[in-house]
């Protein structure tokens, strides 16, 4: 950690979290932990059992007759009450589609809600849901990308004329010539399973309507309280000043909780209808069926390389299966757009061409999930580098070194126009190689990679992470419902205590600590005296919320600016009374003091008393009462975080089982606010990537039935699957952002998927095979090994 001369040392310090105490004692307050008002009604949704069907009829009579049931409502009951959830976009190539919160005639995936039970408690609600008779007439279902693109494919949303709601393309000038003139071309089709985010807390919400005040309060396990409030206002056609959204403690989100879901809208509508409190707590099955899925890609990629291993041109043809509906409010271009834009990551691609599209299917909607398209974009690109290096007889690390963006390249603008203001690709590469012990590993690697029945390999990959995107990026992406900015309101109270409200919402990232460190630094006080509150639209100014690794950059920038403004006022008031120019004052240890004359000081309490007119001294003329500032921060573009990941694996030759034995990351997210929190983000994301690489996958059968609807079917990595991780932090402060911060939430998963795959490619070198699919479950790997052995046998015979 660098601590420069006049650094007060709160930014950059491994400050243990302010959040922990209550969570460790069991005093957290997640959505289902909140006290319920008396007579709270419970909801249970009845869901479509077919992937694609016409609703013929729904008989609710038996369910309604059950004691304790208040009502059973179907889609028709919400017509006119809830507007269609239409996620439009201004991006060229985007065709808006619409979703009914509860369909009236047509269901499009297993899990689409067709009825909702309102009952006195959740047990009765579930009993009643079992008694609702739903008569559906099955329609042909579209499940895979190939199904959706077939010539006579059934259409999900007939109004758009095909199953492709978004398509875009790009080709750099001179691409074809560069591609054709390269010495070698490597190519493959890369597939990735559909994933579920699986926050340990499933989704849930509670809505309460005050009939007298005509005010609705919605507590939701959401990452985006302000966007949810605006969305509810729009969908219910109620004024925003009649709605308050609160995100309580949220048990993980990973992007999945950054969407607005039908259950939140329906619960809000029902709270008003019954003039009371209505609660829905999703269980794990609801979560697997209806919470946004992710990934589910097909990347057809070709890489053209010269004889020195220099990448000349990359061609990317990408399809994303986005499920049955475009997510609200982002639409369905984020994955397909991201997969195209992210591929030129840490390497210099002089030429690039992409064609990308989103395709609809009768599966759960796909939304943003940690890393979005980047883990698989890098899996494809790194996979091709492995293939090219093998063809050229070059060490795969050497080929990567040659293509990395070099220190002298900054500021670097890549082939699709993304600016990298600073970075440390080369330094991270050398640090990660040293940390994993690359040279020693190569020296000791067994002959033919095989020892004790296990193939042994090492993979080293370089990645980038697009973080902290501001308004300009969202406008460019056509996502006009995402403001891009965030905000902070920092206030010193009359007795000198500091409280700050930000437009973010935390799901475990440690915002309350990180933002307190920033504010403490700018006000010269201990972070323990700074209280940060998030997630309540009635307390904080407007902002986008927490997703896409934006909190440190955008929320951090807002907290930085607002606290600087408050600090400036402290200095003006103190300067007036001490008859010293404000510029000659510094904020240190809870006081404003004259630089170089530490005994000339006024405490913050003294100044606060003056600012609130609670003592004899007056405010300077023209100065307003109070000690507070609201500020907004909109970063100019996107902050590019970089990292190198290195993994050592074994592949059991008899079972196909992969074990990740060692792991190292060298990571650069600019100026670090708190290294504990950054490491925590990277560790968690690497483990998620390990799950993605080795085991996780939502499975639909050919009729669109989901086969993985519980944690018994969908494997998550446990402590026994994840290795220890070595971590190096490199700091290249951003020049473009306030405070120099870059985001850190997603790099771990972006790096670990390709690193583990690359290590497996290296382990299987003697067989001459490469991985082109994740997860690499034992059956897939065993099949690769056996086919290679059989082919070898054939060759020997011939």
């Amino acid at each position: 950690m660098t601590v420069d001369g006049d650094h007060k040392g709160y930014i950059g310090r491994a400050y243990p979290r302010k959040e922990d105490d209550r969570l460790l004692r069991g005093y957290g307050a997640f959505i289902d932990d909140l006290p319920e008002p008396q007579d709270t009604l419970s909801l249970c949704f009845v869901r479509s059992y077919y992937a694609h069907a016409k609703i013929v009829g729904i008989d609710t009579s038996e369910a309604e007759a059950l004691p304790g049931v208040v009502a059973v409502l179907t889609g028709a009951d919400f017509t006119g009450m809830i507007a269609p959830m239409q996620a439009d976009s201004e991006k060229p190539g985007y065709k808006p589609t619409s979703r009914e919160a509860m369909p009236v005639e047509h269901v499009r995936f297993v899990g689409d809600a067709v009825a909702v039970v309102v009952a006195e408690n959740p047990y009765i609600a579930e009993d009643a849901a079992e008694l609702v008779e739903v008569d559906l007439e099955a329609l042909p279902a579209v499940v895979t990308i190939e199904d959706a693109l077939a010539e006579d494919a059934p259409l999900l949303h007939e109004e758009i004329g095909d199953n492709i709601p978004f398509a875009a393309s790009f080709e750099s000038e001179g691409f074809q010539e560069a591609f054709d003139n390269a010495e070698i071309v490597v190519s493959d089709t890369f597939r990735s399973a559909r994933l579920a985010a699986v926050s340990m807390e499933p989704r849930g919400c509670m809505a309460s309507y005050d009939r007298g005040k005509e005010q609705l309060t919605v507590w939701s396990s959401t990452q985006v309280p302000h966007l949810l409030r605006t969305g509810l206002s729009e969908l219910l056609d109620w004024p925003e000043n009649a709605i308050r959204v609160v995100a309580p403690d949220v048990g993980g989100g990973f992007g999945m909780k950054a969407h607005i879901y039908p259950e939140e809208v329906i619960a809000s509508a029902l709270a008003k209808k019954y003039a009371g409190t209505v609660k829905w707590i999703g269980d794990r099955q609801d979560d697997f069926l209806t919470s946004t899925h992710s990934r589910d890609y097909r990347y057809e990629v070709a890489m053209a390389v010269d004889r020195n291993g220099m990448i000349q041109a990359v061609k990317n043809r990408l399809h994303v299966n986005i499920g049955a509906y475009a997510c609200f409010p982002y639409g369905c271009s984020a994955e397909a757009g991201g997969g195209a834009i992210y591929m030129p990551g840490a390497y210099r691609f002089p030429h690039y061409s992409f064609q990308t599209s989103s395709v609809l299917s009768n599966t759960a909607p796909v939304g943003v999930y940690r890393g979005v398209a980047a883990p698989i974009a890098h899996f494809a690109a790194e996979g091709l580098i492995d293939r090219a290096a093998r063809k050229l007889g070059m060490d795969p690390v050497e080929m990567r070194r040659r293509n990395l963006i070099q220190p002298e390249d900054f500021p670097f603008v890549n082939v699709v126009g993304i600016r990298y203001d600073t970075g440390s690709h080369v330094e991270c590469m050398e640090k990660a190689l040293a940390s994993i012990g690359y040279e020693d590993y190569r020296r000791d690697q067994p002959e033919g990679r095989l020892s004790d029945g296990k193939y042994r390999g090492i993979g080293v990959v370089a990645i980038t992470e697009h973080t902290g995107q501001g308004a300009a990026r969202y406008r460019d992406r056509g996502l006009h419902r995402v403001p891009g900015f965030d905000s902070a309101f920092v206030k010193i109270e009359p007795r000198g205590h500091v409280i700050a409200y930000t437009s973010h919402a935390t799901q475990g990232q440690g915002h309350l600590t990180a933002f307190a460190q920033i504010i403490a630094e700018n006000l010269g006080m201990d972070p323990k005296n700074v209280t940060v509150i998030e997630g309540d639209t009635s307390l904080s100014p407007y902002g986008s919320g927490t997703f896409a690794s934006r909190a440190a950059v955008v929320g951090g920038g807002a907290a930085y600016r607002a606290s600087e403004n408050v600090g400036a006022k402290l200095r003006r008031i103190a300067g007036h009374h001490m008859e010293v120019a404000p510029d000659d004052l510094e904020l240190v240890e809870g006081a404003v003091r004259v630089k170089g004359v530490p005994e000339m000081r006024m405490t913050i309490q003294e100044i606060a008393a003056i600012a609130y007119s609670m003592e004899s001294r007056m405010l300077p003329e023209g100065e307003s009462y109070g000690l507070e500032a609201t500020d907004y921060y909109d970063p100019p573009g996107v902050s590019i975080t970089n990292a190198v990941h290195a993994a050592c694996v074994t592949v059991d030759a008899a079972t196909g089982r992969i074990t990740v034995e060692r792991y190292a990351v060298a990571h650069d997210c600019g100026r670090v606010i708190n290294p504990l929190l950054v490491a925590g983000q990277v560790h968690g994301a690497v483990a998620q990537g390990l799950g993605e690489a080795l085991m996780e996958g939502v499975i639909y059968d050919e009729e669109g039935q989901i086969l993985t609807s519980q944690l018994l079917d969908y494997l998550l990595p446990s402590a026994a699957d994840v290795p220890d991780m070595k971590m190096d932090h490199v700091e290249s402060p951003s020049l473009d952002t306030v405070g120099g911060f870059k985001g850190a939430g997603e790099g771990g998963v972006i790096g670990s998927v390709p690193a583990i795959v690359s290590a497996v490619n290296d382990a299987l070198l003697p067989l001459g095979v490469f991985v082109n699919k994740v997860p690499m479950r034992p059956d897939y790997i065993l099949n690769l090994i056996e086919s290679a052995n059989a082919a070898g046998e054939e060759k020997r015979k011939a």
Partner: protein
Amino acid sequence: MMAPRHKIRTRVNGRIVEREVEPRMLLADFLRHELRLTGTHVGCAHGVCGACTISLDGRTARSCLTFAVQADGAEIETVEALAPDGPLDTIQSAFHEHHALQCGYCTPGFLMSVRQLLREEPDPNEARIRIALAGNLCRCTGYVNIVKAVQTAAKRLREESAEA
């Protein structure tokens, strides 16, 4: 559907409680919604994730797979018993120092499992810790700092018991 209620009497975190419950009421729901001990969380309701882990007669148990009526006459401890006030206990402190929790939803289950592990095995090695905790899922931390916290807590608990 509404079945006759059964009277149960248990000791929860040292306090005797008597309630009438439906036979199908899960122990997790009983603790959370009847007794308002909401530190115990439900992540899957299938006994996979371990967020609902409590101590039942001195052994860890999944409160999502246990009916409240099965706890009749039993002694239950939940996360709220570890340090109701005053300083955090040794395991909680180690979790705090090592940043071994993020969203905190799974944390109560981990704390209960770690307590059981360290009672049975005061000096587990890293591999043993990882296997012993494989029944508790965490989606935030990647387990790296949880393992470190357990190692630190184990060392301190051994020192404390040596001093005692």
